[in-house]
């Protein structure tokens, strides 16, 4: 019976291994649940969680899979897909008239969102079967207002010609997941080129040469000499483009970020959208409340920080060249000026572009950024990374 449970968890994309499953069985056989009034589902839940799930960020997924299994329902909803709630809300707000909004306010946003989410999951399943959609049942709260997910274009916000001049819906950008370990090994090897070792801190290592020398000088009596261990001293300031056209590169950028995070001790990172303007942010969920002025960033870090941009540089040229060209707010100074200020403040800089090099020449904005970066743009490939690292370590 528990085999099914195990596979339910696996299909919910929980990284559960056979060993952990056997541990759970062992614990059950050893009677961990037996005291304090005997086994119960609650206790089994806790035991299964402590034995099978090793990361608190997976708890939520586990809870849902557990519930699904113990209700005897086959899991049809896709647990791996998480609807960005904030974004749904924003999109809905844009689509609704003021009266409708007032009606929703009465019902409560959270409740509505929860229902919508549930419907969305249900609908995915039914949709594949080819029957009904949200909003046609007549009794659902959504039907009353007469829209459906297609009407509000869930998941279709990207401009097709990739040069949208105004993006109105402010999506809740997902933070890049830096926990990805798969496939990062090659990237790490490339990043190793950027190592600068220096000895710093407490004396911990035997300095063999010096010890021999001073022992000899000491007429053969030992004289131990110690030196501090070597550490990577390179400092990196990483600025990353998120959202919009970057969505399709998320996977590779995640890998890059994951590799850099563990490779460099002094790594500072900030996010921007399309082009750098007068502020950046560190947390995509709080990007509108926690802003870091670009001036502060320029002043805060020394010249010896290596500046690395990661972005596709694909936008409308206005966004770089014109004041007020940003798609998100009214920027006083053009992005080009900010890029220049940054490259002046940090003499070692490079731009890493996840777009394939072959298409660069067809995008006007890439050419402009190339020029602003004095041709220091590299593709996000192993050879491109190596090239960038070689340039930065010069």
């Amino acid at each position, binding site marked *: 019976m528990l085999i099914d449970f195990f596979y339910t968890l696996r299909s919910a994309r929980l990284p559960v291994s056979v060993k952990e499953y056997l541990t759970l069985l062992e614990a059950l056989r050893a009677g961990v649940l037996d005291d304090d009034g005997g086994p119960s589902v609650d206790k089994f839940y*806790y035991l299964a969680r402590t034995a099978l799930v090793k990361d608190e960020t997976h708890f939520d997924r586990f809870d849902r899979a557990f519930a699904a299994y113990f209700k005897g329902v086959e899991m049809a909803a896709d647990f791996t897909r998480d609807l960005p709630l904030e974004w749904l809300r924003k999109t809905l707000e844009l689509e609704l008239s003021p009266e409708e909004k007032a009606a929703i306010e009465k019902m409560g946003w959270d409740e509505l969102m929860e229902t919508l989410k549930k419907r969305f999951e249900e609908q995915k399943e039914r949709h594949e079967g080819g029957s009904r959609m949200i909003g046609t049942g007549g009794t659902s709260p959504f039907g009353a207002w007469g829209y459906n997910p297609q009407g509000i274009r869930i998941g279709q916000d990207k401009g097709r010609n990739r040069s949208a001049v105004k993006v109105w819906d402010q999506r809740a950008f997902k933070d890049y997941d830096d926990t990805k370990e798969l496939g990062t090994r090659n990237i790490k090897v490339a990043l190793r080129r950027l190592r600068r070792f220096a000895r710093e801190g407490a004396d911990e290592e035997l300095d063999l040469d010096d010890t021999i020398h001073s022992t000899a000088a000491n007429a053969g009596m030992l004289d131990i000499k110690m030196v501090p261990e070597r550490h990577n001293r390179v400092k990196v300031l990483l600025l990353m483009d998120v959202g919009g056209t970057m969505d399709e590169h998320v996977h590779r950028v995640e890998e890059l970020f994951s590799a850099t995070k563990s490779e460099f001790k002094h790594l500072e990172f900030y996010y921007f959208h399309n082009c750098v303007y007068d502020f950046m942010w560190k947390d995509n969920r709080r990007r509108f409340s926690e802003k870091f002025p670009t001036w502060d960033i320029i002043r805060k870090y020394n010249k010896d920080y290596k500046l690395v941009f990661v972005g596709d540089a694909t936008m409308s040229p206005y966004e770089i060249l014109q004041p007020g060209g940003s798609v998100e707010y009214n920027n006083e100074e053009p992005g080009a000026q900010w890029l220049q200020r940054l490259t002046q403040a940090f003499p070692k800089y490079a731009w890493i572009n996840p777009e394939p090099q072959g298409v660069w020449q067809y995008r006007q904005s890439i050419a402009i950024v190339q020029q602003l970066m004095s041709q220091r743009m590299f593709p996000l490939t192993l050879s491109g990374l190596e090239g960038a690292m070689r340039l930065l370590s010069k």
Partner: protein
Amino acid sequence: MKFQGSEQYVATQDLMLAVNAAITLRRPLLVKGEPGTGKTMLAEEVASALGLPLLQWHIKSTTKAQQGLYEYDAVSRLRDSQLGDEKVRDIQNYIVRGVLWQAFTAEQPVALLIDEIDKADIEFPNDLLRELDRMEFHVYETRELVRARHRPLVFITSNNEKELPDAFLRRCFFHYIKFPDADTMRAIVDVHFPGLRKELLAAALKTFYDVRNLPGLKKKPSTSELLDWLKLLVAEEIPVEALQTRDEKVSVPPLVGALLKNEQDVTLFEKLVFMQRNHR
């Protein structure tokens, strides 16, 4: 052996179950949670509740896995050889036993705490896989195999500064200590301050959760900070009225420095209070 919480430590049901599973199967228990939720305390309390001696291994960024097993002090052997010391003939004299060795060879079962494992190098947990799984290791210098007489009860704490490798995680039970809800918190405070007046506790807890729920704090105050603060409140004999405000607005509580450890947080907090006053 069963752990049921103790007089000084309030354990929730899921925590007790995790600890008991680890005790029964003698597998390591990995404990994570916000700083100040009592991860290290847990090991101490379980050890004393079960009457086991507790061996502690505090990990620093320079700690190597080998140091937990043993170290061969080649330098002092070299020095002794120059001085013609008789000791030098036996290599055993220069093997310094680490915490794991002590735990494995102890006469009775022991509890072992590996504290803040995430502080060490990224490869550190990988170097301990076999040792924690089979509870044995090989001493290269003397060609002996050290095997645990009694599998020690291992607690490992992590503050999540680094990801731990999957192979390591698979060998552990895992428990995440949630930040306690108000009821659990009351029980915890009761354990530490048995005679605390009800009104003072209620007012203090309300202030505490208000402060915690402020958006944008860099370091949220945790259980241990609440306990410190209460201790101060009691010691300074702060009256209950100082904590209560007539309306529902937040005010700067007395001795706020015990709760907020960061001058940016204190400024932010004062600014918020100030803004609220002006909105009246």
